[in-house]
């Protein structure tokens, strides 16, 4: 089995799961309880928070635990929009965001907020001039992802940060669900970033847990009200087993980060170099500084992405389609469509996503299997002659 769908989710690490089990079975007090069991749970909660903060180079009180990327994104976006509504109702995002960002903006638009959706260039990157033109005195939020989940484009977070230095009151949110542990952190997390989202199951930790970084002093309206956990920003009894497991997973993820990322880049490079030699294949994730090392999106012209994914699956290789293919409704945005890739090609795209557990042998195996599939479809579609 070859699993090349790590941007969808990753397999939980055994030692991370062992931490989860141990905490769930032995340290199961409520961190808010006064007694020793609660105290022990509380200590572990705060030790987890501190470890994550230290690893990310931020302060412990800037780390908030959520149920994952979707909640972190929603809290950052709606929380800002509500908390800052007295100061303005204009919010900005890009046209290639994950659905949890895009749909949060759509929801706010229905509630009367003015939304600017920045276009992207053919590489999937927003243009800083577009952002500059969009900013006005009513703007309270800019939300741009660090690494695009469909093609792996790294957004110019550094340039956006420079621009926003002149607008200190605007909240800058970065959805970095795809970006941690890929040796590009400096590019996607600058000191100007106020809010940042992470999702644990993208790095071998359990589902249902994530991080929202909120820079100290920044206002957010909570979405979940209740017992006041997470300093009132996210009420609900803390998911301590998952939190501790995530803290461990981040430590493991960032150990030898550079080596792991270059290993993933080598797998990607090998496959890209094969694909480039084939007529009728369009690559949307070139080998470049501006693209993440672990995401490879390409299309085999004339074959729907869904068909290709299932064909690969029949050979025990697991990949995914992009939202262009998944979309049931025509108006649903997709990164490739935003990149002005023609619909016909966009719907042919599939995404491979690697992580450090993948091997170069798997890349070879993939190439061999894919080549057979390619020969078959190429013949049908007369690609070789193109």
């Amino acid at each position, binding site marked *: 089995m070859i699993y090349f769908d790590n941007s969808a989710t990753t397999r939980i690490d055994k030692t991370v799961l062992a931490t989860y089990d141990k905490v769930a079975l032995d340290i199961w007090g409520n961190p808010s309880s006064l007694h020793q069991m609660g105290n022990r749970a509380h*200590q572990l909660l705060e030790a*987890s928070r501190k470890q994550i903060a230290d690893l990310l180079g931020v302060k412990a009180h800037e780390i908030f635990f959520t149920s994952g990327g979707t909640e972190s994104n929603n809290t950052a976006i709606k929380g800002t929009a509500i908390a800052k509504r007295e100061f303005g109702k204009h919010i900005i995002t890009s046209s290639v965001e994950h659905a949890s960002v895009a749909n949060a903006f759509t929801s706010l638009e229905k509630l009367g907020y003015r939304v600017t959706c920045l276009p992207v260039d053919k590489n999937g990157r927003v243009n800083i001039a577009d952002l500059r033109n969009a900013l006005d005195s009513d703007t309270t939020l800019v939300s741009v992802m660090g690494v695009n989940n469909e093609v792996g484009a790294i957004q110019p977070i550094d340039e956006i940060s420079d621009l926003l230095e002149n607008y200190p009151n605007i909240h800058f949110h970065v959805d970095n669900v795809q970006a941690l542990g890929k040796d590009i952190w400096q590019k996607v997390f600058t000191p100007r970033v106020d809010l940042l989202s992470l999702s644990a199951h993208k790095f071998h930790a359990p589902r249902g847990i994530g991080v929202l970084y909120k820079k100290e002093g920044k206002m957010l309206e909570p979405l979940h009200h209740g017992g006041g956990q997470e300093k009132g920003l996210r009420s609900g009894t803390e998911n301590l087993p998952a939190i501790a497991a995530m803290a461990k997973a981040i430590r493991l993820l960032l150990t030898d980060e550079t080596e792991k990322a270059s290993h993933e880049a080598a797998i990607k490079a090998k496959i890209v170099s094969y694909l480039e030699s084939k007529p009728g294949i369009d690559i949307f994730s070139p080998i470049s500084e501006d693209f993440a090392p672990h995401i490879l999106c390409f299309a085999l012209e004339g074959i729907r992405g869904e068909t290709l994914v299932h064909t690969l699956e029949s050979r025990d290789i697991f990949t995914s389609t992009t939202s262009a293919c998944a979309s049931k409704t025509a108006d649903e945005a997709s990164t490739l469509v935003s990149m002005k890739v023609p619909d016909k090609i966009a719907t042919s795209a599939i995404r491979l996503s690697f992580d450090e557990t993948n091997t170069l042998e798997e890349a070879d195996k993939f190439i061999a299997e894919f080549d057979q599939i390619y020969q078959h479809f190429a013949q049908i579609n007369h690609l070789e002659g193109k």
Partner: protein
Amino acid sequence: MVKYTEIMIRYGELSTKGKNRKDFIAKLASNVNRVLSDFPMVEIHPKHDRMHIVLNDAPFEEINNRLKKVFGIQTYSPVIKTEKTLEAIEKTSLELMEAIYQTGMTFKVNTKRADHKFEYDTNQLNSMVGDHIFDHIPDIKAEMKHPDLVLRIEVRQDAVYISNQLLHGAGGMPVGTAGKAVMMLSGGIDSPVASYLALKRGVEIEMVHFFSPPYTTEKALAKAKELTGILANYAGKINFIAVPFAEIQETIKEKLPEGYLMTVQRRFMLRLADIIRKKRGGLAIFNGESVGQVASQTLESMTAINDVTTTPVLRPVVTMDKTEIIALAEKIGTFDLSIEPFEDCCTIFAPPRPKTKPKLDKAREYEARLDVEGLIERALAGIQITQIRANQKFLDVSSSEDTDLL
């Protein structure tokens, strides 16, 4: 970054003479040795006029942080030991100056010669090394009267010792040279500051802390212990003596008029502290009282409370304003912990209207209704002694087994 090879320590309180001076130096050497014990390569050479610490590659920065908290050190200088050639002296001197020079600073060279056979005399060395620095650091200016930087060169028999800075130590007297005492530590702002000041005068202290479970929480006790851990930076290990006080408080509350609850409680505390002091060979009792700060600290209250002993009760912060105490607490690093809101035994049975001017005879009379001896005996039977090392944590300690999970 320059690599210092030695540290030269100058003693505080030079007026001490004779055997006292010997004790001073021996105690200081042992205190320095203790704070540097995890650097086995370091050699400590206590001499009559100063102490030399040979680093042998130990990191100066970390050693510096530790030395700052050792009482009895007036000033100290990091030095580099250099060959007795002009070339080596000039090279090291320049390195040392470049390490600390900032644009616009002035300097001078100050040479001392113990080896009078050395081929250059003091003036020659001053001027040659000065010229060398002048030639290599653009814009640096010489200034004889009040230079920003002084480069000290000592030519001794074995080598030349060069230093670029004079650092201020903690002053005071080496802990242990002034004898032993108990310190009544509550967990508030004042008593840790009083502890620091007692240590600064060379007093070896043991903490006496009253706790009253279930009225006070484990956290209040842990907080007092952790404060002791901060103070242990200045003292090495400190014994922490926890005295159970709930039975005494309950009994007083049950049997005595409200106005005298506080006064009689304090009399019990002082009595217990004095018994512990005697058992442990102490000579005095320290506390964190400041005149007039609260009802128990008026002169009338002190009179009514102090009545239980003739042992000196010393109050280092007695005349300090709260703001002065807080400033010192912040400096020594106890403030943030002191203001953590865990109720201690002083507040739980505090009457709404304590007498600010209690009468001594009344206090004695009321107290006589109680089984003083029995209460004291049972409290002493429940004492717990913990030895606390520098920066030991008690409040936010996940068990190491738990943090290993992360």
